[in-house]
């Protein structure tokens, strides 16, 4: 079986600092794979390498066996919240529609009937139809996040990549958002970066900890040795009551 995302021995450095040190991971089809770790540990950098936005210094990344560039049509991406200007004059419908551009070839990249149809469908699915003529600045935080998710989904991706999707929304809204992801999990592979271990834990099938090097058992459990290796500070995290709290059953899915 070809992994949905395969990262092999990827290293990346910037200004003499090694940000990623021989990182390898395999996200299998149907996984909901969570990447956790401290700020500056390289999570976003790894996502950008997987998306083909920056080249890895060494190592390879494949998406269903293809290079990140060739695999782009199969990938939906939810960037970190507030990476763009919410006051941009753009309706929700226009924003979602723009997510179809990766499927449109040619110099002009004109939208076709099927692009509008796909947009209507995804707006309906994420309960955005009633507010599709509003601009982003006139939506609530949860609606904004659903609109950004809709843009990622409108291209019918096989892999959905999310970078800290719930940072700027309140906890009840975050739980609602993860219910949507839980629903999407049946039809696509999901890779997400999060520090919100409490919310993600009920949903994920695998967890990896990344702090320059990657630690995982390819299970949904965060174990003390992973935490220790990642944060070099296990006591602090356990004091937050995080490991082992909600990881009761984990479906016995182990990919070794």
């Amino acid at each position, binding site marked *: 079986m070809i992994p949905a995302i395969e990262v092999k021995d990827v290293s990346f450095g910037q200004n003499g600092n090694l940000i990623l040190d021989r990182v390898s991971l395999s996200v299998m089809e149907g996984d909901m794979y969570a990447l956790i770790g401290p700020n500056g540990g390289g999570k976003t950098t790894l996502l950008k390498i997987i*998306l*083909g*936005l920056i080249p890895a210094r060494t190592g390879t990344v494949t998406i269903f066996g293809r290079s990140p*560039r060739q695999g*782009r049509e199969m*990938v939906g*991406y939810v*960037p970190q919240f507030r*990476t*763009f*200007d919410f*006051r*941009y*004059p*753009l*309706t929700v419908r*226009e*924003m979602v529609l*723009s*997510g179809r*551009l*990766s499927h449109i070839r040619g110099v*002009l*990249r*004109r*939208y076709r009937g099927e692009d509008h149809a796909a947009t209507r469908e995804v707006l309906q699915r994420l309960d955005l139809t009633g507010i599709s*003529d*509003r*601009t982003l*600045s*006139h939506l609530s935080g949860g609606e904004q996040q659903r609109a950004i998710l809709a*843009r990622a989904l409108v291209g019918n991706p096989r892999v959905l990549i999310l970078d800290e999707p719930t940072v700027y929304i309140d906890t009840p809204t975050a739980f609602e958002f993860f219910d949507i992801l839980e629903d999407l999990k049946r039809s696509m592979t999901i890779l997400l970066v999060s520090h919100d271990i409490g919310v993600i834990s009920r949903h994920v099938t695998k967890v990896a900890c990344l702090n320059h090097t990657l630690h995982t058992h390819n299970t949904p459990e965060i174990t003390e040795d992973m935490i220790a290796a990642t944060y070099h500070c296990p006591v602090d995290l356990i004091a937050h009551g995080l490991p082992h709290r909600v990881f009761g059953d984990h479906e016995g899915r182990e990919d070794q």
Partner: protein
Amino acid sequence: MIGPGILEYEFFQNALLAGLLASLSCGIIGSYVVVKRMVSISGGISHAAFGGVGLGYLFGVDPLAGAFGFTTAVALGIGVLKEKAGQNLDTLVAAVWAAGMAVGIICISLAPGYAPDLFSYLFGNILLVPRSDIVMMAVLCGVVLLLVAVLYTQLQAVTFDEEYARVMDLPVTWLSLLLLVLVAITVVMLIRVVGIILVIALLTLPAATARGFSKTLFSMMAFSVCLGLVFSLGGLWLSSLLDIPSGATIILLATAGYVISLPFSRIGSG
């Protein structure tokens, strides 16, 4: 001052045409400048145009043609340096801003004779735009309209969320460079109307005002063009009524319009 017969004067027809063409390109390109936060880079590009005017004097080329070549080169230079060298944009802009003016000053001091209409390049005079410049403005405006019409969706994607545009494999680098060149073209068109020093205001104020009342980029552009027309023709009328410089009057009118609009803006002033 302005009587019913004034429309028959060629200088006045030219002034109206110049105002119309300037408003069109300003409204459209200015909208990108505002939403993409390219205001300071556009200020740098417009002041660098003075270097082109000076080079034109020195080498006996039409100063506007000089400004066109030089400004386009500067815009491309900024774009490439920003992309490749990862230079701090603020510093680049400051360097280009001052160096462009410096090149202009030195060239003009070296050029033989006296530069009689230098003042009009710096501050503009919509009443003194010659017919030949109107033709050039019309051609440039046509180029701007055509490119924006053809690339509208892609330019929207790039100006809204550059990273996502890259993920979708759009030619982001080329489109960003093109946008800078479009800014350069627009700046050169506006030199005759409001002058190098005031260009940035006409490029940004109508668009910034329009953004407060627009749900889409297209409506922002359309509204911005209308505002540009009101400001430039209103400024033209006021300046001849009060016998004061037209370029400065247009800018003050645009500024007043912007300030008055702020309390009614749907997105607030922040």
